[in-house]
């Protein structure tokens, strides 16, 4: 179904059932998740956990099905020559806007880190000494807070060692920076129609991504088992794990996307002047890279 225009034809896809299935899958996934965590707060609802897990699984399968189907279709359309310059530009603008929204998502967590570190922790430590309930709390960072009773549950300040910057995190920085370079190198290969360079470059990028994830997994294990640093370690623990965790999640997605385009490259997809799929993923990867640099400086180093 195409339309005659001055820029040629704009491709309007046929009706598609995938979006509706995707939404249903998401509904099942999140509703199931809610039910499965009910016992956390209300034991009388514990019987919901099992059906909840079932719903999550069903939703997850539906989502996977759609991902394969939908992306498969897009790849087919792309290879079928449906996407010209005009469509390509739509995808590019779309991807930029999407990445911008991801930036805003991370901004929320960086904002929380900034707020706790610069505003709330010092404030708690600096109430009028005559009246403060926290007599010997020092507002130094890293902090797990002064402790106290919250909504009836007592919170005892845990002892923990903060994560140093110059061990694994520094190595991880190197890994990600290198992977940014290798994916660019692969792009050059693509632009020069050097398929070998493209594939090797992508393979190295994937390998670096996996190495990063592996090291981060190790780091988490180390934090929980030896440093006493957990999600529950007050302000520091919460921001540390949420920021690095969401970043790690994005690296995982990025790596999967890289694997997909690697496979496509091996199949001979992409040409020097038609490869939005590749570029979209490369942009995403660079974005993940930049977020890590911020993390490294603001979470680990300073």
């Amino acid at each position, binding site marked *: 179904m195409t339309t005659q225009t001055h820029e040629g034809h704009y491709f309007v896809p046929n009706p598609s059932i995938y979006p509706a299935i995707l939404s249903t899958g998401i509904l099942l996934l999140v509703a199931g998740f809610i039910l499965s965590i009910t016992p956390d707060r209300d034991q009388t609802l514990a019987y919901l956990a099992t059906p909840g897990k079932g719903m999550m699984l069903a939703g997850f399968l539906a989502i996977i099905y759609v991902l394969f189907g939908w992306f498969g279709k897009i790849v087919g359309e792309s290879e079928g020559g449906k996407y010209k310059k005009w469509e390509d530009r739509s995808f590019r603008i779309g991807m930029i806007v999407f990445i*911008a929204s991801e930036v805003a998502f991370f901004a929320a967590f960086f904002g929380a880190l900034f707020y706790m570190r610069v505003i709330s922790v010092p404030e708690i430590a600096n109430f009028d000494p005559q009246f403060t309930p926290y007599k010997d709390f020092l507002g130094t960072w890293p902090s*797990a807070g002064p402790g106290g009773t919250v909504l009836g549950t007592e919170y005892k300040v845990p002892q923990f060692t903060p994560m140093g910057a110059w061990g694994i995190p520094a190595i991880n920085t190197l890994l990600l920076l290198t992977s940014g370079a290798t994916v660019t190198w692969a792009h050059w290969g693509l632009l020069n129609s050097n398929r070998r360079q493209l594939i090797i470059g992508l393979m190295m990028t994937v390998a670096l991504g996996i190495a990063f994830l592996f090291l981060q997994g190790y780091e988490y294990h180390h934090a929980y088992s030896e440093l006493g640093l*957990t999600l529950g370690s007050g302000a520091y623990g*919460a921001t540390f794990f949420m920021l690095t965790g969401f970043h790690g999640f994005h690296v995982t997605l990025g790596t999967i996307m890289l694997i997909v385009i690697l496979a496509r490259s091996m199949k001979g997809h992409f040409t020097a002047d038609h490869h939005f799929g590749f570029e979209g993923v490369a942009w995403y990867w660079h974005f993940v890279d930049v977020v890590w640099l911020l993390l490294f400086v603001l979470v680990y180093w300073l």
Partner: protein
Amino acid sequence: MSTATAAHHHDDHPTGIMRWLTTTNHKDIGTMYLTFSLIMFLVGGSMILAVRAELFQPGLQLMQPEFFNQLIGVHALVMIFAALMPAATGFANWMLPLQLGAPDMALPRLNNWGFWLLPPAAILLTAPFILALFGIGDGAIATGWTFYTPLSVQGGIGVDFAIFAVHLLGISSVMGSINVLVTIFNMRAPGMTLMKMPLFAWGWMITAFLLIATIPVLAGAVTMLLTDRHFGTHFFDAAGGGDPILFQHLFWFFGHPEVYILLLPVWGLIPHILSAFSRKPTYGYKAQIYSFWAIGILSVVVWAHHFFTVGLPIPALLYFMYSTMAISLPLAVLFFCWIATMWKGSMTFETPMLFATGWIILFGIGGLTGLILADVAADAQYHHSYFVVAHFHYTLFAGGIMGIMAGVYYWLPKMTGHMYSETLGKLHFWLTAIAFNVTFIPQFFLGLAGMPRRIPDYALQFSEFNMISTIGAFTLGLSQLIMVYNIVRCVRGGKKAEAKVWEGAEGLEWTLPSPPPYHSFTEQPVIK
């Protein structure tokens, strides 16, 4: 809908329910958004009618306080996220391709997904009510629409449902915004530069930017709330070095721009109506665009005016007060341009124009009262009183919903191909305008006299005004049925509408027949 009338050789799409589930057509998707919005408006309205009935007299008559709290919060979430925002997105879907001379929205499949995320979100929002009937959990979110911690940390399963509803609504809005931005930047007809683009598209462009910048922050905030509730973090808890006020910062960093997200599409569409019925070109096209930009930028730096009473340091109070007041400057320019568009025109008052002029006055009241809320010292009195409730219904109902209604009457003939009943339309306007004021003017006085909001029962001196307000609300609610009837009638038939429905209307959408063909511009028009 009548766009279904066959006989166009491109119309090879499934029929029945499958047509709507699978469609990639911007008009079908627009229709779904608008229908969803109308249904949710009635749902959200019914909830608040129950609340107003409870507030008819002092004492508890109809419901327990918990249920009351659930109703107000869900009312607000439904009205804002499921009625007002989808209505604006529905218009964007219907009208942007028509106004820009494009064949369709830029990313049609994504567009469909954007819509189909909404019904699941609505289900998540309302499901806890139904689960509670079966003894599962204690009902929907009872924290008001603002999710304030630690009340929301303490709350029941309804909070979890609302958190994920917000996530889905957020994804939907981001998808919608991506589509709008790509369409605006990539699908305009040759020759239509940005500075020739209709104001509606401009309003939506700023809206989309704001959505992209703020919705993810809300998503982040409710995610932190979720981990505080279930996974042991201490973002919002002093014992761990966190702060409940952090949540308020994050929420309102989204929440304040949100009010302009809701209104910018309306500010874009009203000038079209004013100019059409004054038979005169829009005054100050550029000035309005610059004002949109100014509002968009200012809106993300003023958020703390929603919590002046938490005890911010003096410099912060002053900064947020003055920056908030600064938003009135571009709005003054907008008001001036609207009135200058009418000035020396040749006006007629069909229903859309009635709504548009009524809208200027009522939104003016909302905006001006907003201006005084910005004053820190007096806000200690206004804050969380009914004065604020009245302020934001003048902006949200009058400024938002009534603006959308103006658009509905303006574009309905174009969308359906039939004229609506002008008599019923006028009746609807007058009843709405009067009943609206009867409902909300008393609330200004209630607020000044010291009635806090979100209370199920009140002291005796507030009785009379509450009574009037409830009577107004029920009249207001019933009046909306006239509109529903009018729309249904118009969809099913009626006098045939011309391509150019209104004598003074300008824009590409009026060059296509009413209703427009299934694929809007098979040949992109060239703008000189």
